[in-house]
């Protein structure tokens, strides 16, 4: 029984799986997720959003989650560490969560928190937009890349994307030296046409998505030369194996999450249409776990990250009744529309 794969989307099971992480207890052996609980939260609510289930979260419960997210916000005008923390690990009961030493915003967590707030219907009224943008300046390095936090993190394309996405969400680009950011991205284009995590690194669909999304969100796709643009399309299209699905690098096996990273990159470059009729949801559907959630590969154990990206990837394939995606921001069109309405209000 267990070996017969079922090729239908198990919507109810995925909803349960994501709700279990969101509301139930996460077992202690996953304590290594402790410092990134806001990212787990994002995968849960974003996955539910693709499934069209966020409306069903009770208003009272939404408020609880929103309040928890706001507890992670740091406003520090002196050290320029404003943003959102990854979790409550450093918040103390004794000081009622007051921000103390080593409590810094991290750009990936700021991104996850802001999108989660939008998904849950919050209007970002309690977000200190000005200070977050101001602090972002301290994260950009000479080469144009971004580090995650003021101290102790690496710098690469992931955080370039996060910085661009946060600027887009807050509708304020004053925190980024865009010229330098674009140069970093262009310098990271590899000889094979794809884009690596930084210059001279192997092309990778994760970093390629981050780079292209940052260009798209900042209205800079035109910085790609004709050859760069065409080579990127070719390299990305080559990531599809009709039997296996999307991989993230040449000669690597397919993996559920690349149905989004690669698919969304192709969407940004208007090239998804060339493979639309050939993209097969089978591989992604095969990575569903029998108790809900998606895995990286068939039979390899689900996690919230692959569950969200599996759903988002299926949505790009226009698989039955999933909310449509807005690829550059990695969210649904529903959320993007909400955001645009907020921008209109802010102006």
């Amino acid at each position, binding site marked *: 029984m267990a070996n017969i794969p079922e090729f239908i989307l198990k919507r109810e099971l995925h909803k349960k799986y994501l709700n279990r992480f969101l509301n139930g207890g996460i077992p*202690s052996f996953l304590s*290594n997720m402790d410092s990134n609980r806001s990212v787990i*939260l994002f995968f849960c609510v974003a996955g539910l959003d693709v499934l069209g289930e966020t409306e069903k979260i009770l208003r009272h419960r939404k408020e609880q989650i929103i309040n928890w997210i706001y507890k992670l916000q740091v406003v520090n005008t002196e050290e320029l560490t404003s943003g959102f923390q990854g979790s409550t690990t450093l918040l103390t009961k004794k000081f009622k969560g007051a921000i103390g030493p080593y409590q810094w915003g*991290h750009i990936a967590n700021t991104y996850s928190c802001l999108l989660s707030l939008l998904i849950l219907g919050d209007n970002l009224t309690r977000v200190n937009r000005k200070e977050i943008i101001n602090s972002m300046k301290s994260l950009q390095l000479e080469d144009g890349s971004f580090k995650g*936090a003021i101290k*102790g*993190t690496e710098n690469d394309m992931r955080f370039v994307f996060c910085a661009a996405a946060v600027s887009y969400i807050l509708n304020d680009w004053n925190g980024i030296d865009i010229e330098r950011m674009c140069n970093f991205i262009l310098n990271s284009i590899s*000889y094979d046409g794809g884009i690596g995590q930084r210059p001279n690194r192997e092309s990778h669909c994760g970093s390629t998505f981050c780079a292209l999304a940052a260009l798209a969100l900042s209205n800079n796709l035109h910085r790609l030369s004709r050859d760069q643009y065409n080579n990127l399309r070719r390299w990305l299209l080559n990531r599809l*194996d009709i039997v296996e699905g999307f991989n993230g*690098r040449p000669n690597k096996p397919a993996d559920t999450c690349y149905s989004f990273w690669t698919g969304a990159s192709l969407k940004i470059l208007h090239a998804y249409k060339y493979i639309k009729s050939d993209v097969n949801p089978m591989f992604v559907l095969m990575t569903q776990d029998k108790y809900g959630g998606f895995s990286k590969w068939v039979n390899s154990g689900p996690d919230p990250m692959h569950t969200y990206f599996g759903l988002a990837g299926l949505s790009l394939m226009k698989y039955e009744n999933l909310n449509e995606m807005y690829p550059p921001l990695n969210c649904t069109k529903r959320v993007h529309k909400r955001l645009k309405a907020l921008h209109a209000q802010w102006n």
Partner: protein
Amino acid sequence: MADSSDDEVPKHVLFKDRPEWKDIEPLGEYDSDEEQPVVNIEYSAEFKDCYDYFRAVAQKREYTQRVLDLTDTAIKFNPANYTIWGYRFDTLKALEKDLRPELEYTKRIILKQPKNYQVWNYRNLIVTELQDASNEKELTALALAEDSKNYHAWDYRISILRDFKMYDGELEFATQMIEDDVRNNSAWNYRDFVIHRTNNFWDGVETDVIKSEIEYTLDKITKLMDNESAWSYLRGILANISGGICGSKRVNDFCHNLYYNKGNRCRFLLSFMLDCCFRDHEVTYRTKEGDERGPQLLARIKELCLELATEHDVTRKQYWMHLSKSFEKMIIKAELERQLYPSSEDEDSTCSCSTED
């Protein structure tokens, strides 16, 4: 079963039961004041105890030997917490400790968790402080022996090479890794990095190094035709010579022979030849030669696209058909321009991103 918690963390004494921590008031986590928690992890008693003490020392920025031990435990429980790594580093610096033991410490963790961003980043910090990268090649080689495509390990090795100018023997390392797995795209990328860092390519000259890299790659392609990594590397090398992708007679003959004499129709061969035609047209269409070559090249391009679309790369059928059409449009447009403005300068060719749509 009753002792399962002892089994999980052998001999672990809670910090609250350690005499040297008696003076510290542990600080509980201010997680959620809601009745229903959010993405709640059911921490073990040991985890909670350790982080209660970490919160307490972080509040007062204590940098002592006992804090080093505490960070060691905190890292064991969650090696992905960048704050703990940063705190450990600050403590070592404040105590003016020898950083050398950290090399062994991080090596142990890296080999257990070779895809952990934080530990690689911390290792980089230590090595930079010590200004000694003599162990790094060995460490990355060990990590790559476990997973020859580990992005972190390659990324780190490239950083080390660049920062410490340690290029000696690295072409051989790339050769060995490619020998082990000719499909290893990471190793090909590394080869490209090393070749470009250790040679000067100027004025589009086909140097001996370029010639030997071409031979090397053609040999690998001959042994395994359907290998995107090798074909991409070939393109990368050819980008250094004038004429680019179709600038090497050796390569042109190689492809010609494969296609016409051996009847090979590998999709990477076809797309390579296709791009050669395109490049050829770009270079020659404003010359006298272009008069005749235009229609010839167009016919060839259409033929190759059709072969790809209908037989040898049907997954991307619509893409190849689209390319065929857009090349055709472009060539017709170019012909028109050539006839209308025979003497005008080449216009900027970097702007037509949207022409394909």
